[in-house]
């Protein structure tokens, strides 16, 4: 069987409506061949619908979907060279592990021996050799997940889809399996679209992330650029933690803006903003706590301080509102009511348009 190799996926102005509800609204993006792209967003943002449109389980109401440059918009799932790993794994409970994995080639009409050979190969790849004769109900959650991956891999699809594949695993296992998925994707050079609502998971595995909100794409880009240069308050808040503070842009010159945060003025990349009201997203680790009375810093008062092992979570009451600060390393606990000042690190502050 000739291997088709990974293919790109392209959405052109794709929308999905159920009656009056718009689940996906005029979405455009491209997943390059061999790339792992995450669709990230809160529940109900349209990410799973987008994934199901790639699979062909939903047919787009409008727009064009291309896989490997070919228009597949109206093609049914069975006609697309795409496999999917389901959130519930969707293992057929009445078939053994081997029968599950061999299902794709079997329904394609391959001989039993060939189908079994292909299935065994992939089962070995995911480390499940020796489990062929078991039923899914006799496997642990992690093992079931691997069977689902092996089953999706057997036909060597052009595009592999993951729908929140880790949500049924415990926290420790999650980290290991996501690394395995990433390794598998890179070793086999697969095009993967991956849906998750866990921003940490997305940052860890992706080449690129597409952040969705309210049926639209909020921002797409590499994990680092999303974290460091969020386009708006939603992305800033959804990926990592952020203090969103209302500020005033005093003047803009040479791509830099002088921004007043309360009584303090800092210089930030202007990002195309004009003087006037704006907001700044401040990462908690970009806020530095200093002794009271320090000049050029925001005066404040400690409200709460929580000990979390490798860091402290601190809430500080200031003139621009309550700020959330994280201090790493073994620091002393800070008593509530203690007067302090807050100054800003050189990175971790991003100017965003006011809401």
């Amino acid at each position, binding site marked *: 069987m000739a291997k088709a190799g990974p293919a790109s996926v392209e959405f052109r102005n794709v929308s999905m409506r159920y009656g009056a509800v718009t689940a996906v609204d005029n979405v455009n993006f491209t997943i390059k061949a061999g790339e792992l792209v995450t669709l990230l967003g809160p529940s109900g943002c349209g990410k799973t619908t987008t994934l199901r449109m790639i699979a062909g389980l939903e047919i787009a109401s409008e727009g064009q979907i291309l896989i490997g440059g070919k228009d597949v918009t109206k093609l049914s799932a069975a006609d697309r060279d795409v*496999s999917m790993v389901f959130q519930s794994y969707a293992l057929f409970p009445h078939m053994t592990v081997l029968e599950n994995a061999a299902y794709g080639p079997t329904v*394609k009409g391959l001989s039993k021996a060939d189908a079994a050979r292909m299935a065994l190969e992939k089962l070995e790849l995911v480390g499940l050799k020796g489990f062929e004769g078991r039923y*899914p109900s006799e496997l642990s959650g992690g093992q079931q997940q691997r069977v689902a991956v092996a089953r999706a891999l057997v036909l060597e699809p052009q595009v592999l889809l993951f729908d929140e594949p880790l949500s049924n695993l415990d926290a420790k296992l999650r980290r290991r399996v996501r690394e395995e998925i990433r390794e598998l994707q890179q070793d086999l050079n697969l095009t993967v679209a991956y849906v998750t609502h866990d921003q940490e998971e997305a940052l860890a595995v992706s080449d690129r992330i597409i952040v969705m909100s309210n049926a639209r794409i909020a921002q797409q880009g590499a994990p680092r650029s999303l974290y460091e240069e969020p386009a708006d308050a939603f992305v800033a808040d959804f990926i990592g933690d952020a203090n969103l503070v209302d500020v005033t842009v005093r003047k803009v010159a040479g791509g830099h803006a002088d921004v007043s945060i309360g009584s303090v003025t800092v210089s930030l990349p202007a990002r195309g903003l004009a003087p006037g009201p704006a907001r700044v997203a401040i990462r908690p680790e970009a806020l530095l706590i200093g002794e009271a009375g320090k000049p050029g810093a925001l005066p404040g008062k400690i409200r709460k301080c929580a000990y979390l092992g490798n860091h402290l979570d601190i809430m500080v009451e200031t003139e621009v509102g309550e700020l959330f600060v994280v201090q790493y390393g073994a620091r002393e606990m800070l008593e509530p009511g203690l007067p302090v000042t807050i100054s800003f690190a050189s990175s971790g502050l991003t100017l965003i348009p006011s809401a």
Partner: protein
Amino acid sequence: MAPATRLALLIGWIGYALMPWYLVEGMSLTSLGWLSEYPFGKAGSALALSFSGQTPWLLPVGVALGLATAFIASQDRPLVARALIWAGLVGIVLFFAQGFAITLKDQGIPWLAALVGAAGAAQPGVGGGAFLTLLGLLLLLCHGLAYRGICRGDLFTTSAIGVVILLIGLFIFFPVSIILKSALVDQNGALAPSAFIARFLDSSIWGLGCVTSNTNCGVAWNTLILAVLCGVITTVLGLACALLILRTGMPGKRIMRALTVLPIITPPFVIGLALILLFGRAGAVSTLLYEWFAIPRSRWLYGLPGVLLAQVLAFAPIAFLVLIGVVQGISPSLEEASQTLGARRWQTFRTVTWPLLKPGIANAFLLGFVESMADFGNPLVLGGNYEVLATKIFFAVVGASYNQGQAAVLAVILLAFTLGAFWVQQRWLGDKSYTTVTGKGDAGLPTPLPRRITWLSATLILPWVALTVVIYAVIVVGGFVRNMGRDFTPTLEHYRTGFAIDFSNGIFFEGSAWSSFFTTVKVAAISAPLTAGIGLLTAYLLTRQRFRGRGMLEFATMLSFAIPGTVLGVAYILAFNVPPVEITGTGLILVIAFVFRNMPVGVRSGIAGLSQIDKSLDEASTTLRARSFTTLWRVVLPLLKPALVSALVYSFVRSMTAVSAVIFLVSAEYNLATAYIVGRVEAGEFGLAIAYSSVLIVFMTFGIGVIQLTVGERKLGRRTRIATIAAPAPAPAVG
């Protein structure tokens, strides 16, 4: 054009060019005399008949097929789609146009006949060839729609939807609309709304004679009174029994469960028959009372009391089956919460348990109400002068005063009643059920019943259970004694009359019951798999596919729940007695009647089964390149085995016990067991009737066992994750 589409074309052409177009009398596989003139003559194919000029109006149908054939090698998907849609649509329209326009001499639709160029012509009812042609055209249309991207472009799905819609339209909507039409026309077939109104307002239907003077009330009131009483009593008994079994330490849980199966495998009028043998003028109990206490024999049983008693005995187990599910569904922790808040047992029952039960109770009442309305056997056997709609319809059709219009009007009224009840059930109760079975473990213990309710319930159900036991004892014993009530000499005479086999000359089935018994078994065995197949397929389409008009289809299948058997029977003889579909008197109409009568049961158990199977399993199969049909066959069906068993069992059993629909449709050649037994009852041969009934009950038990063995269990490994939470709710056996 996909290979499947070519197959559809082939089916169409086989039907059009090879098979006999019309239904030929005397068709058989052993003697081929009816084929003598083939391909011309009465067994001719449409192609031959059209070109020889005998039926030129069939030619356009062939042209439509030809149009589709012209694109057989085309790769241009949109073009093929358009061609198939047009060819299929035009072909189907032409098919029905000529079919309904040209029927018997001087009937049909003259102007339409003239339009298709066949003024004054006549043709017999359609047969296998016509059916295959229609199927082929329909598949072409559906495939064309699939090429357009309907139903995600899945050929199987669109075809299945098309076939189901055609079948429901042809065998449910068409006959029912014929009834409506018959109600609106006079004896000569002319539209006569005044005649309808006159018949509708007739005093025999709505008269209030029983209130104002000493005559009988109208048949509509009789039916309503009986139905309300039956609904109330069966609900009370069912509830009492459910509460006792689930909320007290009462023994006999297993036995009660078994008792609920009995009425399902008991032909509906058998209870009435047993009551006659006990309480009739010559019944065992009446005789005892007369001899010991000199209480005169009377005919009190024949009328409202008898029919009500029989119906309560027959339908209370169904109410019990519904209510036990409702009582079980009440989470014990709710009652425990009430108790921890300081409520006593009685207060808890009044303020928590009872309000939660109410929707279920209303449901059980409506079920009993509808069952009673639709019941035909018991009023026929026990009604006496107390006429109800079901029996009055029967006598309007088969009686001396044959009156098709009156039968139609009565059927419309009965249909309106049952549909009304059904509508109330769907609209008002549909989403009012509070009983929840959550996935979360519920560790609470059900609160014991307050003592006064326990006593009240026990007092109510004891006579009922006792009477049921006695009734079944009578059914067992009745066949083995000479004359129940008068002469208790043991005898095998009744069985010999019915089921004697003469071995002197090979095997000769001498007994008078054999012929109807074999027909019944044959018809039940053919219709059960068809019912289960169509029912489960419909359930699959309704739950797993999204398409325009799904709501309509769902409504239509649910609607057929509410059509009483008597109404369907009348509708079938009115609709299928003349071409284009002329199948009365054949075994085929019995099979069709059973399939569409029982289909809702298949649909319901299919929906119940499918709702337990996670939809992502289907999707996983699809993304692994399996077509809908492969998915259905390899993934859904194996997991649906329990639903398949229950659909098969129900339709098999109901085909053997049904009487209301088929009593209109049986013929001398194709008589059915139930119709035969009713005949024996009317002739006063109670012994034979009851012997035959016991044979049926035993045979059905055996049949259920065979079905369970054949289909087998589904295997899910050691730890079954799909828990069968609730057994599929019992289907309302609308008599």
